[in-house]
């Protein structure tokens, strides 16, 4: 069973602001999800290498060549606020 404080911690990490009712609900739901995933513990996976990627691909490279950039006005065009070509954001420190 997950604790409420664990849910609060995960919510904080994800920048989700939950009210008390939501915290209760998600504690129950997340616990169920984790229990379901725990079914995998019944399998013996000691001989199975960890999966790094689901596709049978490796070493996909590009060459070190500079390509086109986004035009500056397009690059910041969707930002809610901008100033002098910069993205403008609320204070961070």
């Amino acid at each position, binding site marked *: 069973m997950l604790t409420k404080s664990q849910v609060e911690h995960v919510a904080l990490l994800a920048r989700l602001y939950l009210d008390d009712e939501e915290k209760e609900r998600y504690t129950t739901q997340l616990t169920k999800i984790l229990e379901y995933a725990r079914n995998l513990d019944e399998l013996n996976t000691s001989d199975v290498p960890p999966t790094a*990627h689901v596709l049978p691909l490796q070493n996909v490279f590009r060459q070190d060549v500079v390509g086109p*950039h986004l035009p*500056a006005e397009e690059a910041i065009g969707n930002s809610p606020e901008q100033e002098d070509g910069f993205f403008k954001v*609320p204070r961070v420190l």
Partner: protein
Amino acid sequence: MRAYESVIGLEVHVELKTNSKIFCHSSTAFGGKQNTHVCPVCLGLPGSLPVLNRQVVEYGIRVALALNCSVARFCKFDRKHYFYPDLPKNYQISQYDLPLSYDGYLDFETDDGCTHQCGIVRVHMEEDAGKLIHREEVGESPAYALVDYNRTGVPLLEIVSEPDIRSAEEARAYLTELKTVVQYTGVSDCKMEEGSLRCDANVSVRPRGSKELGVKTEIKNLNSFRAVHRALDYEIERQIALCKEGRRIVQETRSWDEAKGVTAPMRGKEEAHDYRYFPDPDLVPLVISPSWIESVRRDLPEPPDARRRRYQEQYGLSVYNARVLTGSRETAEYFEECVRLYSRPKTVANWVMGDLTRLLNAEQVEIQDCRVRPAQLAALMRLIDDGTISGKIAKVILEEMFASGKDPETVIREKDLVQITDAGAISGLIEEVLAGHPGPVADYRQGKGKALGFLVGQVMKATKGKANPAMVNDLLKQKLDEGK
């Protein structure tokens, strides 16, 4: 012997000088207008996909080998999550449990001549974050930040040391050697002042002899070698003082304040370093073949420590001279090219470390951009040997060569600086000087040896320094003694 010892590990970030970013085609060039070296990939726009720049792997292997690391046969990229506006995706692509390389070491020497070895935990690849400019609140308008993503996605190598370093001085020496070794591989400028080499330090203290590690702090904002030394000295003393008072050291990130000379707690980017790493599904794993590793190894230049030893053994240089001349690969290559063309290494060393370095420093020119090429310096030294010019005039000629890039022969011809070695001509000048300075002549003849120096100076002045000084000296003595 002090009752406490410090335990230090350094995390160094080196910016790689590729043309394009690690996962996209955007330029890594410095100085572009804000948000002009960006594309959908490095801006983290939905639907864009990263593709690994092969050159980054190649450079990474070079550094790994130069630091005696094992290169992983199989590695992958992971997402490191944190929310901060310098990161448009809210995660940084880095390497977590399967890094590019691991288990290396670096030998280095402190100023007292002691050699040390520091283990290298790992060298891994990751992307750089963007740049934030903080704006204070003014009147009614609140504080805010401006974001430039030009640096976002520039390739970095993170080089993590073992906690094998025991003092601030050792940390400085380790970092100096690390910088030299990485510079030799040619993958980075490693300029701390420009941010292409950055260093964070983890430090703790413990009673001497104890095997247990104390609580550590991480120090950031170390922008120079001097800052690393000063910040660690400060932090070590701070922690020892807390221990002596029986107070607790808090595990935290602290920032070095250069102006105040103190470290102070930093507000964290994220709670408790919970980065929730997981494999980046947008990037496929990397498998590095032994033949790739070997081809990189074959192309590695001779490392600085081997070069230092060789300069002492092969060229008979002092430890100090060998150290200075191998300080950068460019200096070492310049020196060796000179030695190939002029076979007296000690003379070459004196010119390179003396007059040439003085000129380079005064004009802030890097040796690879120096207009005096090795062949020209070699020619200058030969002109001294064959008596065409004096050593003193050669210094004047070098200055002119440095300014104009001309050959020494050209400078000599244009400025009429060929050494006067004609005894007749010198004698004539000496007669004139003697006639013009009866006072000093009389002084000398009365046994005041100092007067000779004055008279030599007058003759040299009359020839604008071109007379062979030894000949002037001999002939002048001869004439003065004749008249006694």
